[in-house]
């Protein structure tokens, strides 16, 4: 069940009505049942897989809490990590592993014909985060199985995050939430904004991106460059839309989810970009991988190696393919080069314009945007040779004979509308970063309903939906 489907349009209100009308004791079991139903709409059998992961992490957490000896605690932790990462490996990485091994030994090894469970990386990481927190003593082991199961499977953020922390969600699940009109207002705006980003921008840009990237050999450099920039906005709108709708849906129930994006394309460095992009995953890796590896409080080479490890793993987290791995490695490389060049940059700032000068800020922003887009080529390309061709064509545009945008699968009128929508998106993101717009919009009923009305009409007219269209999966579902 996609957020941009008619089913969700029915599912959410029915769940909300039941949630607010049922007695407090039944609220969480209801949400748990709703979450399993929501997940089961993709592949019912995989609810059992999620249930297994929940049971394994729940009992490991309980057993760790009972153990006094660090060694035995560690044993339960390792067991839990092995079980969960084993499941993740089996479903997500087994074929990649055997393909790579086969390539190395020059033999074709058998692969599995299994469907990747939707959102497996998200709920596995959320459950593992809990287990590590319990091991470290940061949070107590959850006694109530229903509350714990709901924490892992809470439907708004189940299949594409944000990857929540125990300390944020579980206490909220312990509180009885009554219907609040202000929560409804505050939840509706991100839901509509998310639907706008997904259905109007992401899914329409996807047509142009897919047209170009699915046949890169027939395209010129300008088309490939254009499609790459379109993909930057497609993936941002697609993914952040899911987070927005998730936050909005949870907010109506009175539950606050963490913010997952903060105007990432306004970043002026790669480090800054990762503070704003998929924040819940970045912080997860920081807390559960980067810091345990020693973070930056080690020798410089080790610090740089830690960075590379984290970004390589982050790349693999996104998908079992060399392109994702290289995407992560490239971002790690950006960070390492950034650190190594820091003295040179400081000298440059001292001799020319200061770091915060508008021109320098613009150049830093432009450089970051270009670097992020180069990396997106690896992320989006269907194969590594495709990615190489795209990059080669983009960087040799001046030497090419063909410059036109040609047929991108969408009309000129739609391209103009998309440009306007992306402009609106950037302006809203920029304003939101300076000072959140939602409280101002929600303060006046005229403005609030005016904005809702405008968003709904824009979605209804320009959105990608309706007869002959399938609700497009969110890109991050595959991760």
């Amino acid at each position: 069940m996609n957020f941009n489907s008619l089913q969700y349009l029915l599912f959410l209100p029915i769940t909300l009505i039941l949630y607010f009308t049922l007695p407090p004791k039944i609220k969480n079991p209801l949400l748990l049942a709703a979450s399993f139903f929501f997940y089961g709409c993709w592949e019912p059998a995989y609810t059992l897989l999620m249930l297994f992961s929940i049971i394994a992490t729940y009992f490991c957490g309980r057993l760790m809490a009972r153990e006094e000896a660090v060694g035995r605690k560690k044993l339960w932790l390792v067991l839990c990590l092995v079980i969960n990462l084993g499941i993740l490996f089996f479903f997500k990485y087994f074929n990649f592993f055997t393909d790579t091994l086969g390539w190395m030994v020059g033999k074709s090894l058998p692969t599995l014909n299994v469907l990747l469970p939707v959102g497996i990386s998200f709920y596995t990481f959320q459950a593992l985060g809990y287990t590590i927190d319990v091991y470290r003593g940061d949070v107590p082991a959850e006694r109530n199985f229903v509350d714990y199961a709901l924490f892992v499977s809470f439907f708004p953020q189940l299949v594409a995050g944000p990857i929540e922390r125990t300390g944020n969600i579980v206490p909220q699940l312990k509180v009885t939430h009554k219907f609040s009109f202000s929560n409804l207002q505050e939840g509706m705006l991100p839901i509509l904004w998310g639907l706008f980003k997904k259905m109007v921008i992401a899914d329409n840009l996807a047509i142009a991106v897919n047209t170009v990237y699915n046949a890169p050999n027939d395209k010129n450099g300008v088309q490939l460059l254009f499609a790459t920039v379109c993909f930057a906005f497609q993936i941002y709108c697609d993914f952040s839309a899911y987070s927005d709708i998730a936050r909005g849906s949870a907010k109506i129930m009175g539950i606050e989810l963490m913010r997952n994006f903060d105007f990432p394309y306004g970043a002026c460095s790669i480090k800054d970009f990762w503070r704003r992009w998929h924040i819940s995953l970045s912080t997860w890796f920081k807390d559960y991988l980067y810091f345990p590896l020693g973070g930056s409080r080690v020798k410089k080479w080790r610090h740089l190696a830690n960075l590379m490890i984290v970004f390589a793993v982050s790349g693999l987290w996104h998908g079992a393919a060399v392109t994702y791995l290289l995407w992560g490695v490239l971002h790690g490389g950006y960070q390492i080069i950034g650190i190594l060049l820091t003295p040179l940059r400081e000298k440059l700032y001292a001799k020319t314009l200061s770091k915060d000068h508008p021109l320098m800020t613009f150049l830093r922003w432009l450089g970051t945007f270009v670097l992020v887009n180069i990396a997106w080529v690896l992320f989006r390309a269907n194969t590594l040779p495709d990615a190489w061709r795209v990059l080669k064509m983009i960087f040799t545009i001046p030497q090419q004979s063909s410059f036109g945008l040609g047929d991108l699968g969408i009309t000129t009128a739609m391209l103009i509308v998309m440009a306007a929508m992306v402009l609106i998106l950037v302006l809203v993101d920029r304003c939101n970063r300076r000072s959140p717009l939602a409280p101002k919009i929600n303060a006046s009923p005229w403005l609030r309903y005016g904005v809702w009305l405008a968003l709904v009409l824009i979605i209804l007219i320009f959105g990608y939906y309706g007869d002959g269209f399938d609700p497009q999966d969110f890109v991050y579902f595959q991760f």
Partner: protein
Amino acid sequence: MKKIVIEIIAFLLALAILIGACCYLGYLYMPERQDTGATWHKYLKEPKESVDVMFVGSSLAYCDIIPARIYEETGLTSYVLAAPYMKPDIAYYYLKEALRTQSPEVVMLEASSFFFADSEADYYKVNIGYMPYTVNRLQATLDAPAKYRFGLLFPLYNYHSRWQNVHPATYFTGRRDAEIDLLAGYSPLDTYRPQEKRVERVFPATEEEREENLGWLEKIKALCDKEQITLELFVVPSCEYMGQTELTQLRGAAGTIPLHDFNRDFEAMGLDPARDFYDSRHTCHTGAEKFSLYLSDFMLDRYTLTGGPHNRELWQERVERLSTLTTKPKEGE
């Protein structure tokens, strides 16, 4: 209290604008339909209570029957109320809706539709989508397969991507008003494709689908009885003729309703498979002329219709319009 009132007013106002905008945009974005059936906006321009004979059916009706020719030969006014692959359930609602403005003496229902399979008759979006917004449309929508219902209730869902086809000025002026159909529901096909031989048509409908389709005949009969209209079934002449199995099934379900299989008179009409057919099922314009002439004689022989009052100027204009259509269709590929 004042705050709550303002809240309610603002919400209701936004809701009213949204509903109004959705209805208007849904209407604006629907493609104009000029021919090939389901041309309800044109049918509703027909002078009230002016049609003597109503032909109902699928493309086999709107491609094969020329009301202007029948008028010229018999003085009877007729109209082809048809739609692509129209199944009997839709035919029932079409007829019910059509009888709101017309009181024909005879309804002639093309009977091939009783053997249309659900898989091929996938035209609910067009066939119901162009009906006027009445209880009949609502009932037809609710009877349609579930996957079509939302789009039929909410046309913007089906047609929103057509914003690119609408001129900005149209948002203020609205769509141009429909004109009366000078061909009275007939859709001429101006190319022919030589047919090598005549074969029995294979209808893919399952037994359950046939049973369900034939079940609607009782409803159509009851409607005609209630309105004191003579109902007759007919099968158009075709290079894919209806086989005995279907004819027997039809006769069994029709009971006392007369059934005319015009395939028996194929040669008598002078139809030429090499020149008079657009494809193996539909006649091209010359074929439609031959069939309509034959149908005119048939109607004169069979009925003692007096012919109700009608707009003679309009029908004369229709005859003149017919004469402008090419009598020599070109050969298609």
